[in-house]
């Protein structure tokens, strides 16, 4: 336990003093501030002389200002943060020849990798919490609405999901740093993974959906089931990407008016009527219920990733040469 704390403390100090972390932190902070400012002033203008809708505070995070909303930004660039914190965790020590020295100290071997993961996790949490707090503060100033308890709990859940999402990428990059000897290789592998899951899976999903359940216009107008099937296939494939998991989960959590993760709904006239009648927001518990599978999967892939790096690291031979 003592070894774990010592290693974690040192890694934390390393993170907070490393140039690449500081650069990335300021980059993300700046973009978040700019986005929050644009969205906040937009909201203020729109809401002038109108009764303020409920949950207007959460709109700070979800409404897409000029370019993208804050949660989209974190969904796309958050992984980079995880990768930066972990890609050289183990192989840097190996190439600096400090690893053999470290494991010959009286500490359990797993303290090394646990300490590194924990330090990354703490760094991620501190960073996300401070960004959300800063934006909330800015929002308070701009739109002058104080968030209610439900909004605060929704934001809290959003933070937890985001931490797990970035921790998944931390896990992936630590895994590569255990597996690859060279720091450059592990960094490139982690970035390749990020690009694949964040951009290619979404593109590939529609192509594959076309192949698996094709839709032709003539028949689709008679039989809308085809369209639904196509859409479902696309969705299942795109859920392979943690980014899709994360975006769907966070939009539902932060937007109480959303009632489903489906993008196309097939409704009869009665259903349509009933839906338009009940436009009231969902209670928090219902929102959580909708995205519960997403949350579980996100946590599961994070843990699986870490478990694999743990096992590989524990079995690796330690040679000084």
């Amino acid at each position, binding site marked *: 336990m*003592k*070894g774990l704390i*010592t*290693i974690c403390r*040192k890694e934390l100090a390393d993170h907070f003093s490393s140039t690449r972390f500081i650069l990335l932190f300021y980059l993300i902070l700046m973009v978040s501030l700019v986005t929050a400012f644009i969205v906040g002033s937009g909201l203020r203008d729109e809401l002038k002389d109108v009764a303020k809708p409920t949950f207007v505070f959460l709109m700070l995070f979800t409404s897409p200002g000029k370019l993208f909303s804050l949660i989209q930004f974190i969904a796309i660039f958050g992984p980079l943060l995880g990768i930066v914190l972990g890609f050289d965790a183990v192989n840097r*020590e190996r190439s*600096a*020849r*400090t*690893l*053999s*020295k*470290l*494991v*010959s*100290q*009286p*500490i*359990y071997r797993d303290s090394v990798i646990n300490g590194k993961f924990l330090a990354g996790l703490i760094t991620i949490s501190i960073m996300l919490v401070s960004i959300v707090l800063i934006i909330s503060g800015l929002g308070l100033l701009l739109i002058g609405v104080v968030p209610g308890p439900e909004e605060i709990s929704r934001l809290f859940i959003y933070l937890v999901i985001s931490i797990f999402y970035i921790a998944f990428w931390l896990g992936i990059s630590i895994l590569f740093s255990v597996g690859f000897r060279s720091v450059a290789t592990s960094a490139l592998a982690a970035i390749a993974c990020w690009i694949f899951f964040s951009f290619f899976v979404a593109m590939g999903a529609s192509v594959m959906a076309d192949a698996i359940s094709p839709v032709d216009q003539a028949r689709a107008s008679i039989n809308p089931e085809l369209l639904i099937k196509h859409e479902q296939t696309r969705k299942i494939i795109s859920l392979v990407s943690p980014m899709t998991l994360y975006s769907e989960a966070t939009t539902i959590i932060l937007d109480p008016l959303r009632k489903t993760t489906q993008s196309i709904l097939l409704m009869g006239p009665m259903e349509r009527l009933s839906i338009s009648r009940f436009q009231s927001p969902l209670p928090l518990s219902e929102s959580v219920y909708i995205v519960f599978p997403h949350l579980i999967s996100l946590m599961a892939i994070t843990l699986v990733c870490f478990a694999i790096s743990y096992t590989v690291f524990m079995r690796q*031979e*330690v*040679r*000084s*040469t």
Partner: protein
Amino acid sequence: MNGPNVIETQDLTKVYGEQVAVDHLNININQGEVFGFLGPNGAGKTTTLLMLLGLSEPTSGKARVCGFDPTREALKVKRLVGYLPENVGFYDDMNAVQNLLYISRLNGIPDDLASIKIKELLKVVDLEVDPRKKVGEYSRGMRQRLGIAEVLIKDPQAVFLDEPTLGLDPDGSLQMLDLIRSLSQDKKITVFFSSHLLDQVQKISHRVGIMIKGQMVAVGRIEDLAKEKLGVGPEKYTLEEVYMKYFKEGLL
């Protein structure tokens, strides 16, 4: 010199795939002894060290270090044994004191005690410390001395040194040898070290062991080995001659 055995092995064997790295090794090393461990590159010296530290699991056989089994009680062994790997690495962006403090924390030494110890040790290894200077800027000799300080900070009963004088200038090597000798004489620390520099080994070792292709072909005092192999009396031989004799036979 005849204290209790600090290092004992019984048919210690390590097999990597087809290759036998260490083959039924049996050695006993007493407390306070300086044991020189010789052998060509790839003979299995480092593998032996790693097994004695519990960093590598033996395929078969047993070892006891300071009374503990390194495979089962690795933590206890690591608490009592200091290991200086060949070409030891440091955290180059920290200074010497920070490096030492990190290692002492990993050994569970409280910070206030550690800072006193660090001051003492830096004097022992004769390392002048400029706190602004990062270890990355250190010369080879300074790094090696810092490595020794790191090994000594846990007050070890035994130290394993892998090529401690490799790449040091003549003056640096002499200082290192003096330091090793004083560890054994003054502090009764057992020193188990591997080296290729035979004249240095001859100067400080009480006994030597020669390992070739994973087998310990000779263990004993240099005089005895010389008498046995070369048939000459004391002062008429160098360790080099003895070693080469064994080496050529071992390769046959």
